[in-house]
């Protein structure tokens, strides 16, 4: 039997700061706010946290964000790190925290991230964020930050599979509908496919409304061992499987522009969980751009390669469809504070599995999937979550 952490670790606390436009609050402040709410959600005292994993914040000068956050909260963890695999950091941090708990490095790990991309960036920080995103020698001199790498994969997908701009736009329209039911969402006014296609072109094929928002905000998750989980909550949400894949650094060395490492990361996560894509009831999929979601639906196994556009068009990613996705509204409509963005996907899928989503609840959801990715599909992290009934 391959080693596995299936069912060994659970998420017992979820908290988030205000998000959207939240001026005059530092990334550390926002992340501490989310942490205190996650602790309250778990009914836990901060003294029980002995591990801290975070991503980095662009609008913070701290290079060791996890250490700075611990000091801010007056926590002295026995296990800590600040992870950096771009947009996949959320999934990588949850997987890594689960592994650390399973291995005995820590009992209870805070997995948190916050940033203020919208209101907290000085011009220097903005330039740093822009230039750090791609290689300084072979990519950035041509004016190609990360958005253009995703755009070129989408263009090629259109060429190879006939995917249309309207199909991409439908992703934005669907997630906006979802956001309209979510308290705290940054964008809630309904949009149409025409609105997306008529919004300003950013980088072909992506219009402004095909692109994620820019936001402030933070999310905190608290993970502990399955044995301890029941001390805190009646609804622990278990980590059933984790898988990651890192296929390239430069976009020109991506093995295939239209098939990503999500195929491999999902395969590993499904195998560990002992299930397939067909068993997943609700998903959180990293939605930096609309086309990213179309491609991930294929690579995660929810539909066949090349059929992602039609899958979205026929209503399969909303209520009543095959896989309701980003029921909070995602980065396209709920919030996108940078690296923390995909933490919101975790928060939403955990709440769906707890059955606490009110009017946006996916009835009877037991298996959830969160897929996070970044850096022009360089980094991929999949996590399969489940209720107690799935163990």
């Amino acid at each position: 039997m391959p080693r596995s952490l299936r069912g060994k670790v659970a998420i017992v606390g979820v908290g988030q700061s205000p998000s959207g436009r939240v001026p005059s609050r530092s990334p550390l402040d926002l992340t501490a706010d989310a942490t205190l709410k996650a602790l309250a959600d778990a009914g836990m005292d901060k003294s029980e946290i002995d591990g801290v994993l975070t991503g980095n914040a662009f609008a913070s000068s701290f290079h060791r964000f996890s250490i700075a956050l611990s000091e801010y909260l007056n926590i002295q963890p026995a296990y800590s790190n600040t992870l950096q695999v771009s947009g996949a950091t959320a999934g990588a941090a949850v997987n890594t925290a689960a592994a650390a708990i399973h291995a005995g490095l820590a009992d209870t790990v805070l997995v948190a991230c916050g940033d203020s991309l919208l209101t907290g960036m000085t011009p220097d920080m903005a330039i740093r964020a822009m230039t750090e995103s791609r290689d300084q020698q072979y990519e950035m001199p041509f004016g190609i930050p990360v958005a253009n790498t995703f755009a070129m994969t989408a263009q090629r997908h259109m060429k190879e599979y006939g995917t249309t701009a309207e199909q991409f736009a439908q992703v934005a329209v669907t997630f906006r509908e979802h956001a309209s039911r979510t308290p705290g969402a940054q964008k809630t006014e309904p949009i149409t496919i025409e609105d997306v296609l008529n919004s300003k072109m950013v980088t072909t094929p992506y219009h402004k409304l095909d692109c994620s928002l820019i936001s402030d905000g933070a999310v905190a998750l608290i993970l502990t061992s399955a044995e301890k989980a029941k001390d805190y909550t009646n609804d622990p949400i278990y980590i059933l499987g984790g898988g990651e894949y890192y296929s390239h650094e430069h976009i020109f060395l991506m093995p295939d522009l239209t098939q990503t490492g999500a195929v491999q990361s999902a395969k590993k996560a499904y195998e560990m969980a002992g299930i397939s894509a067909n068993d997943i009831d609700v998903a959180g999929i990293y939605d930096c751009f609309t086309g990213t979601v179309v491609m991930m639906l294929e690579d995660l196994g929810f539909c066949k390669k090349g059929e992602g556009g039609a899958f979205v068009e026929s209503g399969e990613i909303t209520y009543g469809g095959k896989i309701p996705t980003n029921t909070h509204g995602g980065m396209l409509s709920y919030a996108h504070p940078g690296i923390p963005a995909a933490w919101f996907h975790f928060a939403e899928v955990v709440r769906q599995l707890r059955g606490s989503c009110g009017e946006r609840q996916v009835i009877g959801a037991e298996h959830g999937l969160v897929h996070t990715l970044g850096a022009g599909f360089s980094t991929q992290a999949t996590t399969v979550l489940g209720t107690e009934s799935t163990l």
Partner: protein
Amino acid sequence: MNDLIIQKPLPIADGDSQAFWDGLKIGQLLLQHCADCGHVQYYQQRICRQCQSENLQHKAASGRGTVHSYSVVYRAPGPAFKQDVPYAVLLIDLEEGPRMISSLVGKDFDVLDFDVPVQLETIKITDDVYLPCFHVVNK
């Protein structure tokens, strides 16, 4: 007006890449050919990415390639590129095999398409930096 003087990110050559940037100054796009396994690679490093051999030889590319994908950029990625938009970024498949990122010379986006033939054109940015860009070859 301050926007116009914000420096673009310029490549800074390192031990791996000095020969590459020197080559561009005399109009050559250098690729690394592995004498042991035959692998041709872009970009420059000490070892072959296929067999880890250090037996690599620099050879100038023909400069011929085709467009694998592209995107026309209308919103500048930061102030340094504001005066350039719109411009087209390209993924070029070189005749010798490797794929590379580049950008289109000029703004004739109508001729841009998947798989169209392109030709290398080095563009002077500063006295020390020439970038390998491409233009579409008229059939």
